[in-house]
């Protein structure tokens, strides 16, 4: 038993740490880790991952919220979309064949890699569109010197549409869909990167929570796996959130991209070769 627990802790601490500092969530890393290294069926990995993503988000959000980087109103508007998608996705996860889930997972990894590598600097807007201003979605973000800069938000409906897809993928694949969320907020709605990442982390927990509740109520969560994974991921995520403010995100991007492409290749190969 000790050997099993040690390996599950090692996998989940690593996944939680990388998930937190990359802003992609622990699920992106724990699902393939459980499938590839612990030889778990995809459905079991998805169920355990959804629980662990809730833990990752909770651990990371403690620091992000305290630092004032989370935009609560943006999170609430977009969570309406992600929760809807997540409940539908978690329901479908019970009927969709494993091979489809594995191929979708590989596709999501490549999307995350593309998003990570094409990411550019902040494009802060000082004037939002009518809906965003009516919803009071703007806020302040400190620049490198600590001086607060005001930002505004645009294209809320387009961002919300992408969030429904993010929620769907979260419920189906047990991931937080952090890359899709940050992409929607950063590329489409023009939120600053730090705000997008922190708000994404805040939202990931609620999105994954919706999916996790479907899995738990259906009896599709293996406590034997999910419990040590949740503990490990929480520890890893707490470590990641402590380290993140001292890291230069730019220098880490290439590492994340390599990891994501390797995972996508392995998951795609497993699906196509029927392993």
């Amino acid at each position, binding site marked *: 038993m000790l050997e099993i627990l040690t390996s599950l802790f090692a996998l989940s601490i690593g996944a939680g740490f990388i998930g937190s500092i990359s802003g992609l969530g622990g699920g992106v890393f724990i699902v393939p880790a459980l499938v590839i290294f612990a030889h778990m069926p995809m459905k079991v990995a998805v169920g355990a991952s959804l629980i662990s993503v809730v833990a990752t988000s909770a651990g990371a959000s403690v620091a992000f919220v305290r630092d004032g980087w*989370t935009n609560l109103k943006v999170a609430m508007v977009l969570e309406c979309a992600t*929760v809807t998608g997540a409940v539908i996705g978690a329901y479908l996860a019970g009927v969709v064949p494993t091979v489809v889930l594995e191929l979708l997972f590989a596709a999501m990894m490549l999307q995350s890699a593309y998003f990570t590598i094409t990411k550019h600097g902040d494009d802060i807007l000082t004037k939002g569109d009518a809906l965003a201003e009516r919803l009071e979605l703007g806020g302040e973000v400190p620049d490198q010197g600590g001086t607060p800069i005001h930002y505004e938000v645009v294209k809320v409906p387009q961002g919300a549409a992408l969030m429904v897809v993010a929620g769907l993928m979260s419920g189906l694949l047990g991931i937080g869909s952090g890359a899709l969320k940050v992409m929607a907020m950063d590329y489409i709605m023009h939120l600053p990167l730090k705000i997008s990442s922190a708000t994404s982390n805040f939202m990931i927990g609620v999105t994954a929570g919706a999916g996790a509740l479907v899995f738990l109520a259906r*009896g599709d969560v*293996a*406590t*034997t796996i999910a419990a040590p994974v949740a503990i490990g991921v929480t520890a890893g995520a707490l470590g990641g959130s402590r380290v993140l403010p001292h890291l230069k995100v730019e220098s880490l991007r290439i590492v994340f991209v390599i990891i994501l492409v390797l995972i996508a290749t392995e998951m795609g190969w497993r699906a196509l070769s029927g392993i």
Partner: protein
Amino acid sequence: MPKQEEDRILREWTPILLRSILIAAMIFLVSGLILDYTFAPDYYVDRYREVQQGHLMGREKYALLLGRIRAGNPHAVLTVGLFVLTLVPLARVAFCFILFIRERDYTYVALTAYVLAGLIVGVLVGSVG
């Protein structure tokens, strides 16, 4: 309520709320694993192998959970820990719901109520799906 006041409440209370639930969940999970390790390590290994073969235990009989926890059943303790963990997002949304009611910001009260309803619908979908 001014935005600065909203931010202050959020910054002060959200971490306390999240940490409290997280700690409670972790106490259940760690206790469950210790019970497993102490009294039923072979059962844990057997379950692990069964799960690797895709055999899950099916829906919980929640009415029996409390009694099984009193009896020191590791699986029941772990199950409760996982449910407490999923309370984190629920509690966070509920906290925002109360915050927006205090602000009398009814647009956000409605949006937050929708998110809360979505989480509850998730339980119902899982129970019948």
